[in-house]
């Protein structure tokens, strides 16, 4: 008999015991380890997916920010270029204006200096010329000349007519103070009498005269009363001459600097 039923029973028990032992020591730990590993891997994959999603989101944000930054940078760069260009234009305009102003100031200064120089030269020339003339005439002035001047003054006084004479007569009559008769040198008594008489006759009234010596007249006489004046002296001629020279000097200087005389351009 190949089948031993005791052995069959024992082997059955042995097998069932082995089933229990294998479940306890093999299948359960192995399956548990596999499950835990799968859970861990699943968790890691989930975490990785979450991190991936987060990274993708951050990447998108970064891309967006980078794009915005690039656009903003371009705009600011463009704005900076425009500002720099505007500032350059402003500075160039200001510099040009400053240069123009400085140039105008310098030109004006040069012109002013030239005018001052010309004015100084003219005045000094006039002063020298007239000083020489006055000195010469003063040296030449003598009694005879003064007498001739007195006669000449009397003749011109008598020759007054019309409005001038009426105005002077009115002034003599209304004057509270004596009429002032100025001469370059002291007049002799006879000439003073002749002058008093000529004045009285001319204005048909007793006009008190006060004789004053005034060397600046150079040579001549001057009658002034109550703001009105009648005179004849070489100084008048010299003054007229001075005015004529002063009027001529700017034009006279022009040919030296410019082909065409121009008072304004002469000073430049």
């Amino acid at each position: 008999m190949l089948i031993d039923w005791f052995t069959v029973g024992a082997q059955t028990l042995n097998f069932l015991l082995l089933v229990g032992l294998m479940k306890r020591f093999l299948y359960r730990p192995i399956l548990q380890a596999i499950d835990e590993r799968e859970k861990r891997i699943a968790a890691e994959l989930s975490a990785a997916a979450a991190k991936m999603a987060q990274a993708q989101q951050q990447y998108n944000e970064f891309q967006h920010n980078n794009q915005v930054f690039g656009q903003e940078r371009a705009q600011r760069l463009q704005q900076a270029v425009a500002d720099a260009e505007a500032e350059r234009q402003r500075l160039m305009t200001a510099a040009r204006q400053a240069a123009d102003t400085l140039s105008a100031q310098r030109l004006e200064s040069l012109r002013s200096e030239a005018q001052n120089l010309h004015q100084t030269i003219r005045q000094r020339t006039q002063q020298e010329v007239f000083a020489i003339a006055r000195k010469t005439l003063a040296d030449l002035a003598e009694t005879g000349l003064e007498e001739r001047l007195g006669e000449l003054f009397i003749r011109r006084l008598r020759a007054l007519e019309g409005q001038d004479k009426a105005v002077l007569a009115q002034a003599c009559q209304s004057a509270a103070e004596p009429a002032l008769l100025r001469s370059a040198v002291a007049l002799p008594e006879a000439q003073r009498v002749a002058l008093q008489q000529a004045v009285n006759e001319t204005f048909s009234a007793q006009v008190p005269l006060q004789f004053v010596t005034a060397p600046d007249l150079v040579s001549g006489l001057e009658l002034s009363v109550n703001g009105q004046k009648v005179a004849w002296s070489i100084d008048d001629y010299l003054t007229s001459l001075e005015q004529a020279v002063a009027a001529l000097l700017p034009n006279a200087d022009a040919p030296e600097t410019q082909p065409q005389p121009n008072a304004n351009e002469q000073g430049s």
Partner: protein
Amino acid sequence: MHLSPDEIIFWQYGFVKLNATIVYTWGLLLVLTVGAKLITCQLSTSLQRSRWQNFLEIIVTGIVQQIAEVGLRHPKNYLGFLGTLFLFIAAANLCTVIPGYEPPTGSLSTTVALALCVFVAVPWFGIENQGLRGYLKTFLEPTWIMLPFNIISELSRTLALAVRLFGNMMSGAMIIAILLTITPFLFPIVMTLLGLLTGMVQAYIFSILAAVYIAAALGDRKRKTPSPPLPAAKT
């Protein structure tokens, strides 16, 4: 020359005896249990793990995959029974390379014990899954006329399981023993290697057939049950 390791009796007291089948089975139990305990006591749940753990995981997941391919929906529920069937038979057959070793599967008592376990396990899982009524209903499929044939099939396949494994293992050991007397050196080695292959195939066949029977009893197979492989052709 012993036809079965049952004949090698170390100790006997009346009906109770301690033969080679039982002793070698205890040895296998000890080796399998201690080996599993030693490997699983330092299991790692991280990606870094030992080679032995990898080896056991491959075996266990392979068994689970095979059970799932048979058509059982929850293969881990049957892993304890079917996996232990495979491991026990495979270990018993692989140890034939050890000189002086007598495989317990070469004993008809052992194969009958295993076949009886399957014979009990099939209705056990079937009733557990779909109830007694549902399980008994499977004997009426596809029609009630098939009832006696299904009952005969249930009994005969249990007998076939036991005899197939016993015949293959006993004949392998017998052939090697006979060839040792004829051609002492080369040919027995080749036959031993072939016996290892045959032992593994038989372990696979026994486990798969048990799984197929359980799946048929459960009635939840997704695909048509392949026809049970014929007993391995005797080499």
